[in-house]
Each structure stands twice: as structure tokens, then as C-alpha cells.
């Protein structure tokens, strides 16, 4: 069993790389300076103050911790709540907003671009510990590539962000130009919990309650990873990494087992899948550590994680400011020492080549 809980927290998190931190969503006034005149006028005439995902509603209170809802400068609050007390080395900002779900492909590009510029100016430039994921319009693939190329020179952008449930399975060929640009520039694809709600969120249609919405996410992640493998994205882009952000972690071994077993009898449909899906998942997929779905007994957590057969996959994350733990008790209990050591920093450096400079 792990002895990590007995060690001072700061010793473990000092210098760590937090792979999932959320700034508050930009408001209309925040984005206006970064929009060209046409879109600035359109924004003001439509007068939507904040673009919030129905599946990831920032302003719904249970999604934010009561003690992490401070007024004033959000960066100062983040520094005081998280970056300083944990002595983090770096933290990756993920803006999960309605920008991901806009139907208008040109508006989507404009909002992604403005959000990225706002991140660079108002966050990255004000604290050199911060890094960010690039928002790109998946409904406008040419625009997405254009946005990646525009920002590729800025090494503070370290990842491309999308959602667990989108318009099409993520491996589809229409998205490949995004993956090509991502691989070229050392940008992993971050798949964050959330849905564009282009389709019913579950495979049996619409559900009634919030708790069901969260369960459906697991299937969203599994569907995306199965699609990326089967469509041959990792055969085509062998250096590409995918990070499942806020996925819960423990659902992954059963996906490995199921898909690897079924691959034996069905791989003739996809002969470019030459390695077992479990091996491909170990090579290409990474998992942020919060939230962490696990048995209550910490000794069983070690068994659960051992099924991954890899110390490379887990990436430390706080998921600030969401409510998964009390105080700064940010590390899941029961993670074996060796795996935790790698998760805090080394695995992130191996996943995000741009973090290393």
C-alpha cells in the first residue's frame, strides 16, 4: 500500500504540472477586444454574455467549490487557492465553453480565436507558470488548422481541446487535418468531459437527471478512443497523444480488455490496427487524475491501477475549481508511490513536449 498520504502535501506537489485547471469563462466584454469589427458588432447585437456548455455549466453551483468562488481578479484567486499553496511548477488552463458547440463554423472560429488571444493576454502573460489548451472549431476543420498554425509559435499553448461527445466520432477522416497539425507541432489532443449535444447524450436517448449525464460521459470517452484506434488515427499519426481530461480513470482497463479481445476476431476489418488496442491505449492515451473513480479502500486502488499495466498514463490534475475533494487534498488515495511520482511531472513532460521548452 502507498505511504504517500503520510508525506507533506507540498513535498509531493512542489514543482508538479497540473494538467487540468479552469479559469472562469470569458464574458462578452472580455472577448470584444479580440474580435474583428464584424464579429464585435455581431456579438453586441446578439448580446449573449457568456457562452456556456449545457453539459458543463460553469455557473451551476455544484460545479464550483463554495470556497473557490471568490470575487475579484480570478488569476489572483487561482494563485492564492491553488498555484501558490501547492507550489505548482506549471498548470494547463482548459476553457471548456460554448465555443466548442457553436453551429456557425465562422462564428466558432472567431470565438475560439478570441478566447485563445484572451487566454494569452489575460492569463498566460500574467503568470509564467500557466500554459493553455488551444480552442479550435471542429465544425470548421480548415479554420481549426489555420488557428493551430497561427498559435504554433507560442509554446505556452500546449494542447488542442475538444469534448468527449461531439458531432462525429473523433477518429473520422474529416478531422485528420487537425491531427496532422497537432502531431506536427507536438500538441496532444485533450478530450475533456462535456458534450456538444449534437446527439442524445446517451446511447438510449435523453435521460432525466444530472447524475445520468455524468455516467454518459464515460461512454463518450470510450467511443472517442475506440474511434481513434479503429479509424487508424494512431497508424496515420504515430506520435499523436490523446489526453482524457476529467474522465475518471478507472473505466480504462475494462475498455482495454473488451476492445483487445474483440480485436482478435474483428481486426480483419481494420488491418492497420496492428497492435492490440490495449497496447495502443498505453502508448497514446493519457488520463488526468481528477475526478478519480475508485474503490473506497485505498489498497484496492493500487490493484485497480495495476490493470493499466503502465506507469506512464496518469497525469496529475486538480480540476480547479471543481468540487472533488476538501481543502488541498488533491491526490487520489492509494496511488502507488512510483506511479504518483511519475504522474506529478515526468508523465506530463513526456505527453506535452512543448512544456519542456
Amino acid at each position, binding site marked *: 500500500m502507498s505511504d504517500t498520504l503520510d508525506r507533506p502535501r507540498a513535498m509531493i506537489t512542489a514543482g508538479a504540472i497540473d494538467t487540468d485547471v479552469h479559469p472562469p469563462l470569458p464574458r462578452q466584454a472580455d472577448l470584444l477586444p479580440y474580435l474583428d469589427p464584424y464579429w464585435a458588432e455581431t456579438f453586441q447585437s446578439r448580446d449573449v454574455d457568456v457562452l456556456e456548455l449545457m453539459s458543463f455549466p460553469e455557473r451551476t453551483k455544484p460545479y464550483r467549490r463554495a470556497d473557490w468562488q471568490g470575487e475579484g481578479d480570478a488569476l489572483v484567486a487561482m494563485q492564492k487557492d491553488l498555484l501558490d499553496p501547492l507550489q505548482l511548477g506549471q498548470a494547463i488552463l482548459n476553457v471548456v465553453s460554448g465555443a466548442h458547440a457553436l453551429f456557425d463554423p465562422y462564428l466558432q472560429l472567431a470565438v475560439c480565436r478570441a478566447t485563445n488571444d484572451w487566454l494569452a493576454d489575460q492569463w498566460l502573460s500574467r503568470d509564467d507558470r500557466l500554459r493553455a489548451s488551444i480552442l479550435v472549431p471542429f465544425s470548421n476543420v480548415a479554420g481549426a488548422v489555420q488557428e493551430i498554425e497561427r498559435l504554433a509559435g507560442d509554446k505556452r499553448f500546449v494542447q488542442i481541446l475538444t469534448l468527449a461527445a461531439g458531432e462525429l466520432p473523433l477518429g473520422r*477522416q474529416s478531422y485528420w487535418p487537425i491531427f496532422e497539425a497537432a502531431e506536427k507541432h507536438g500538441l496532444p489532443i485533450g478530450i475533456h468531459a462535456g458534450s456538444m449535444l449534437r446527439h442524445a447524450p446517451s446511447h438510449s436517448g435523453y435521460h432525466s437527471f444530472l447524475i445520468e449525464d455524468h455516467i454518459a460521459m464515460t461512454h463518450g470517452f470510450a467511443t472517442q478512443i475506440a474511434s481513434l484506434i479503429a*479509424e*487508424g*488515427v494512431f*497508424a*496515420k499519426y504515430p506520435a499523436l497523444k490523446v489526453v482524457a481530461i476529467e474522465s475518471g480513470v478507472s473505466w480504462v482497463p475494462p475498455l482495454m480488455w473488451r476492445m483487445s479481445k474483440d*480485436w*482478435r*476476431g*474483428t*481486426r*480483419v476489418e481494420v*488491418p*492497420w490496427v496492428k497492435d*492490440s488496442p490495449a497496447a495502443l491505449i498505453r502508448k497514446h492515451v493519457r488520463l488526468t487524475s481528477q475526478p478519480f473513480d475508485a474503490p473506497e479502500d485505498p489498497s484496492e486502488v493500487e490493484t485497480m491501477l495495476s490493470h493499466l499495466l503502465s506507469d506512464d498514463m496518469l497525469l496529475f490534475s486538480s480540476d480547479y475549481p471543481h468540487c472533488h475533494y476538501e481543502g488541498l487534498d488533491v491526490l487520489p488515495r492509494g496511488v502507488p508511490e512510483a506511479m504518483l511520482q511519475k504522474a506529478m511531472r515526468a508523465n506530463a513532460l513526456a505527453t506535452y513536449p512543448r512544456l519542456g521548452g
Partner: protein
Amino acid sequence: MPEYVVCKLTDIPMGQSRRFTAGKRDIAIFNVQGDLHAIADRCPHEGASLCKGVITSLVSGDEPGEYRLERQGEMVRCPWHGWEFDILTGKSYCDPNRMKVRSYDVKVAPGETLAEGPYQIEIYDVSVQDDYVIVTL
């Protein structure tokens, strides 16, 4: 190692397979373009008879959307779950080192040489005009 005369060569037509019992073992013998290959007739997964599987080629492809058929007639797919085995070696495609069936030596001998040999010919009515299939366990 014991050798068993299991059938006449003409009992296994080109591109087909037959199941035989040699000693206490069930053996699947395949005729791949005139060459005979013998493997254990029991899928290591759930025990299905590989003899009843589809004889096929190795499906290969490097790029998404690329399909090639290689090594025509040298693979068999288990009739139950479609796992593929190499008829020449007994190894599965997906997990060749751990998931495999035993492969046996098989040869053809003219009947006239068997009449005086060490074989258990009493179970066959060996004729000097035919060729026979012999499996070594």
C-alpha cells in the same frame, strides 16, 4: 515419436481441411496448395474445432483504408470467434507467442513403402497404388 497413418492423400482436397484422431489427439490437417500442414484441432480460446473454420488469407494493411490479401490459404479463422491462426505454424495472429496451437510434422508416403514399414496399417486397407498421409506426434 510415434507416427500415424491417418488417411489417403486424396482424402484432403486442395484448399480444404480434415480432422483426424492420432493416438489421443485431434489433429487438423490442411492442404495448402498441395502442401499438407497439421495443427492441433482445438482453438486455445474456447476449444472450437479449427477444421470447421474458414480457410483464408492474411489480411494486411499499413494505412487506414488499405487492404491486402497475403499468403493465400495459409490462415484459418476459428468458427466461433474469428480468431486467426497461421496454418503453417499454429500461431495466432493477434498474440502469436501466448495464443497458439501445436503444430505437427506431416508427410506423404507411397503405399508400397508402408506395407513393410513400422506403421499401424491394420486400421487401413493400404493399397500400393495410393499415397498416404503420416502425422508425427
